């Protein structure tokens, strides 16, 4: 027996065991994720006929999705809302993550994280609905302010608009942003910070020159983890957004369930995926640049 033969046999046996082990899960994902995604990709190039899909290749759906004022506005709005929510959420979350990582006694960190995560696991639908109740025309804010005599008639600008969508989403995804930043901060060797101060930097400059760069991967993870689901969110714009607050998910739902236009719906869905991917890759690229430093 040659050594190469044994080697090939062993290589095959480990690879075979691994593939056998992963095959149930992988088959599931191929059948119910890869295939469906491929299908809507194909749909997006087909033509919509009434109650059926006509098998002629066309770019018309993409042309419609990207040039029709109505769709373009909604897609741009989704992007803007998602970016705003992401920025607000991450900026508000960073100090909390910093506090828990650097100022909370190690034995109580779990408790803090637990407290922060609980709202995330409580019914999303109910939480969004609560914001509708809080911000609504007869809602908690308005009735409270009226009762106190601060305003004489209900404020209308606090509900059914983009602002309400941003507030609601920022609240919904807050724990998502805190956890990755916290994990990145936890990994920082505390003696690096002492070294920073030992080398003559102030606390603040040490933060800027040591802590922040090292926490960057966590910040980028937080950005992605907030950005991706918010841009595709359906419930919040539907409940608190009003006509002016509709986002791309509402558009897709409209095409699929109300207008039954699968090709156009698919084209919008694929476009949304492309936007998500491009923005995500941009953030990942930023992260890499940031980590490698300016010289290379």
């Amino acid at each position, binding site marked *: *027996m040659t*050594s190469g033969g*044994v080697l090939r046999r062993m290589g095959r046996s480990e690879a075979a065991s691994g593939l056998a082990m992963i095959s149930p899960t992988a088959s599931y994902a191929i059948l119910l994720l890869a295939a469906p995604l491929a299908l809507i990709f194909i749909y997006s190039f087909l033509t919509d006929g009434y109650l059926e899909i006509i098998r002629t290749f066309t770019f018309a759906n993409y042309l419609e999705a990207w040039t029709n004022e109505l769709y373009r506005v909604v897609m741009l709005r989704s992007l803007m809302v998602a970016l705003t929510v992401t920025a607000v959420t991450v900026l508000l979350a960073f100090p909390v993550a910093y506090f828990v990582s650097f100022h909370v006694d190690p034995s109580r960190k779990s408790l803090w994280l637990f407290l922060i995560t609980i709202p995330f696991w409580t019914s999303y639908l109910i939480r969004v609905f609560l914001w509708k109740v809080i911000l609504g025309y007869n809602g908690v804010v308005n009735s409270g302010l009226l009762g106190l005599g601060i305003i004489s008639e209900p404020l209308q600008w606090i509900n059914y608009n983009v602002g309400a969508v941003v507030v609601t989403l920022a609240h919904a995804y807050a724990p998502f942003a805190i956890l990755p930043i916290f994990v990145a901060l936890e990994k920082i060797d505390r003696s690096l910070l002492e070294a920073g101060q030992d080398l003559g930097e102030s606390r603040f400059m040490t933060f800027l020159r040591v802590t922040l760069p090292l926490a960057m991967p966590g910040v980028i993870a937080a950005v992605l983890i907030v950005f991706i689901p918010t841009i595709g969110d359906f419930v919040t714009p539907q409940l608190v957004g009003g006509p002016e607050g509709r986002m791309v998910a509402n558009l897709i739902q409209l095409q699929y369930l109300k207008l039954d236009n699968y090709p156009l719906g698919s084209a919008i869905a694929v476009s949304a995926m492309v936007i998500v991917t491009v923005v995500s890759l941009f953030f990942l690229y930023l992260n890499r640049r940031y980590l490698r430093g300016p010289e290379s």
Partner: protein
Amino acid sequence: MTAKPTMIEFRDVQKYYGDYHALRGINASIRAGEFFSLLGPSGCGKTTLLRTIAGFEEISSGVILIDGKDASTIPANKRPTNMVFQSYAIFPHLTVEENVGFGLRRAGLDKAEMARRVGDALAMVGLTGFGKRAAHALSGGQRQRVALARALILKPKVLLLDEPLSALDKKMREQMQMELIKLQRQVGITFILVTHDQEEALVMSDRIAVMFEGRIVQLDDPETLYRRPKTRQVADFIGTMNFLPATVLSDTPEGCEVEVAGLGRCRIAADQAPPGGNGQETTVGFRPETLTILYDGQAATVRETPGTVEEVVYYGDMTYYDVKLDGVSAAVRLSMRNVPGRPVLDIGTRARVAWSPDALVLFR
């Protein structure tokens, strides 16, 4: 020592990981009942070799015989070998007792017999009364003992120990070394120890295989290994050795005549000088403790060479001196026991250094 039968035999064992050649033709026999060590720097293949005996690594070619049987036909769980892992691999969800008795599950023993065997094993490693403890509540030394008891309870023919003492502190390590030696004598089976600590290997082993880059470069008992290392690499790895350039003047079956820089012309016995040609530029090595500084009134028993003290390192019981011998550019290190009447010398002191050709080893 009477010749004991062979327990493990390697015949041209090769192991590749992809392109990496981890074991490059291992040939060796390990005798029944000996305490055998595989010694070498990290990455030399010693752990891989140990794991081929256990059956955790398949060899790419060659043959391993365990007690005369081809090991490739026996899966790891059927081999008459048991292992003490570097991390100890104590099952964290089981008690000490359950850990030690783990291997007996398949023996089909009744409860009383099982308890007796576990009790005996625990007593053997000095852990009587610890049986009900949770595994994670043990100290490093106790985990080590549990791992030993667990491996020995199956009465293997060979016990494999993968760097078992590396996680312990110095005091504990020295204590466990002694206990392992006693334990090995008591049970009388073959122990094969993997270690990168040359002192540990010297203290514990009957024989040591020194490995570099996938090869066994020397296999000898500790004393031979220390006194007559075959290569500079081995000499450097085990203890400290001074090297001086030398020229071979004549080479005979009884030994050779060499001219050593700083020491002059002398004769080295054949068993300390492998055969080679005349006029060859080579190296001569000697251990620090074979040199002595002569104090006033002392005379050299064999030879003496003058020099200047360049560095003094005081160790309590010993003092190490770096002495530049006249006519040599680099200093040699020598060690002196600190006894009354022998003051520690200052840097710059002129000194007479006594040495003997018997202590010299010639490297080709």
